[in-house]
């Protein structure tokens, strides 16, 4: 499996010296598919790779630099739009990692700008962003109402000139999910990066990444999320993290994420259970052409993600509505 090759290359970059051409093709295809090519490119020693690989990695590093520059510019624009907003604006995920110079940000692919603001300030933030040129992406009234009633974020907004998306969160999991993270505590403990912008505390950064990976989604892009977690764990105090995870209602998920991160990217000496193994099988379901494998297992996790997000009756109603609108799982 080439996902395994990717994991090994990230864990032990020197191991790529042993790869043959077929191994490199598989590694590059998997790294691109998992959006980890930039991370790989900053970790691998350029001198140790074949001539044909060097420009591929150089391209990936340049792309990552551009991603970072664009992400910081978006953060800067949002900070300007929200300059007079009365409350903290907390950067999350990739943009925060890059803005704070964290290891998780090195070479990272960064998509949307994610910010966390107090729930009471959501309407104000929305108005200020719209005044500064952001617009609605989803025109569908069902989706819009769904977001506003049940999600942990506004429907995504896109900037009409720069074509970049912003996700405005007021907590880190959908309101329908079983765990109820304490967003107020996250905001209260956020640490400043600039005069206007904050990021989550070291422990809350881990909690957020874990909630996203194990208490919410279907593990798509999970290798990258787990790489984030592996890097973020290095800055978190283990005792504080355990207490924090308890408070957010995701203690079991954080413990599992630590086992998984250690299993894939760390020493790999910890014990893993049956459930861990299943998650690992799902995370590594990628072949040497970058194709998704283990379709049934993937579908199982897709179903589970919805199960986690909402109670059964609501789930049935939601899936029926989406089905009627023509949506089909990938």
């Amino acid at each position, binding site marked *: 499996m080439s996902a395994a090759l990717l994991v090994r290359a990230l864990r032990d970059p020197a191991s790529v010296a042993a790869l043959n*051409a*077929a191994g*490199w*093709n598989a590694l*590059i*295809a998997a790294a*691109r*598919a998992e959006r980890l090519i930039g991370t790989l490119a900053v970790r691998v020693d350029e001198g140790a790779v*074949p001539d*044909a*690989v060097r*420009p*591929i990695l150089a*391209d990936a590093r*340049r*792309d990552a630099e*551009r991603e970072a*520059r664009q992400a910081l510019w978006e953060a800067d624009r949002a900070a300007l739009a929200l300059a007079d907003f009365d409350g903290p604006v907390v950067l999350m995920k990739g943009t925060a990692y890059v803005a704070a110079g964290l290891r998780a940000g090195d070479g990272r692919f960064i998509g949307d700008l994610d910010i966390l603001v107090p729930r009471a300030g959501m309407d104000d933030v929305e108005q200020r962003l719209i005044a500064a040129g952001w617009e609605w992406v989803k025109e569908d009234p069902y989706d819009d109402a769904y977001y506003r009633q049940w999600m942990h974020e506004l429907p995504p907004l896109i900037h009409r000139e720069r074509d970049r998306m912003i996700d405005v969160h007021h907590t880190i999991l959908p309101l329908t999910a079983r765990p109820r993270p304490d967003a107020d505590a996250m905001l209260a403990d956020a640490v400043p990066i600039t005069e206007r912008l904050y990021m989550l505390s070291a422990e809350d950064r881990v909690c957020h990444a874990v909630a996203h990976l194990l208490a919410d989604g279907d593990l798509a892009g999970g290798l990258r999320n787990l790489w984030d977690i592996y890097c973020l764990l290095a800055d978190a105090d283990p005792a504080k993290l355990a207490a924090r995870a308890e408070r957010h209602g995701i203690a079991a998920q954080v413990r599992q994420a630590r086992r998984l991160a250690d299993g894939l990217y760390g020493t790999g000496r910890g014990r893993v259970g049956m459930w861990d193994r299943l998650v690992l099988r799902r995370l590594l379901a990628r072949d040497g*052409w*970058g*194709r998704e494998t283990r379709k049934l297992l993937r579908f199982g996790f897709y179903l589970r993600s919805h199960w986690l997000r909402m109670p059964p009756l609501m789930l049935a109603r939601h899936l029926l509505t989406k089905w009627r609108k023509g949506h089909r799982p990938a």
Partner: protein
Amino acid sequence: MRHQITLKIGPATFRIGSAWRDPIDRLASLYAAYPMLPGGIADFSVRLEPAGPLRQWLRPSIFITGDHGLAEAAPMSLRHGLLAAEMGMNLQMALGWRRHLLIHASSVEKDGRVLVMTGESGSGKSTLAAQLGERGWRLMGDEFALLDLATGQIFPFPRLVSLKNGAIDVLSAEVPPDRMGPLLANTAKGDIRHLVPRGGAIDRMEEGGQPALLLFPRFGHAADRRDVGQAEVFMRLTQASTNYVALGEAGFLALSRLVQRVPAHAIDFPSGDDAIAMIEALWEERA
């Protein structure tokens, strides 16, 4: 994947995998004169996959993807497998190439200097390049011109020329049949037939040249020519480039230099022969 081939076009190496044998066999035959790197390290992987669970066998239909893909790409019939492979390679270049500024343009070279022709599909740029390539010019490519970020040279991407509809008859009249691919009838873009460039175009595919003239051809109008100002050229080329934004400052600088140094004209023409006469005259005058 079950069937695969690795080939090099200009500076880029592609590993193409397919669920079916036929598209790979056709590529192997039409690209026979190009460098093949069996088992080599590729810049891009292209995948021709069944478009659905049963589509490998039942009304076989191809979903084109790879390192870079478009989720909404329309499936193609296996009969058009060769075109699918070509589109897959173009897709990787358009979305993933970073080592040059990529301009959606055809280009031909003479005496080390390059004529670049850009325009939308149907403008005639591809047909003109193919015709010039048969008449003493070196064909550098009919789809992408690669602008070097440091030297300002244009580098070739001489893949098979994709001739459409009327252009097929025009070129098959002057090209030996062994350099023409099979007729792919009724594709989304009409009839398509591929043309293998002349030997020199392939042997010298890593050799660039300084751009000397930039044309915006337009087929199907009364003969006319006009100068195009630098600002307009710049805007049109940013639109014709798939990676201008991704290259950031380096792309801006390279494009600015091209626009400032190379004369540009728009030419309208009613037929290929008119166009070639206009081009040769302009080349004498300006380049």
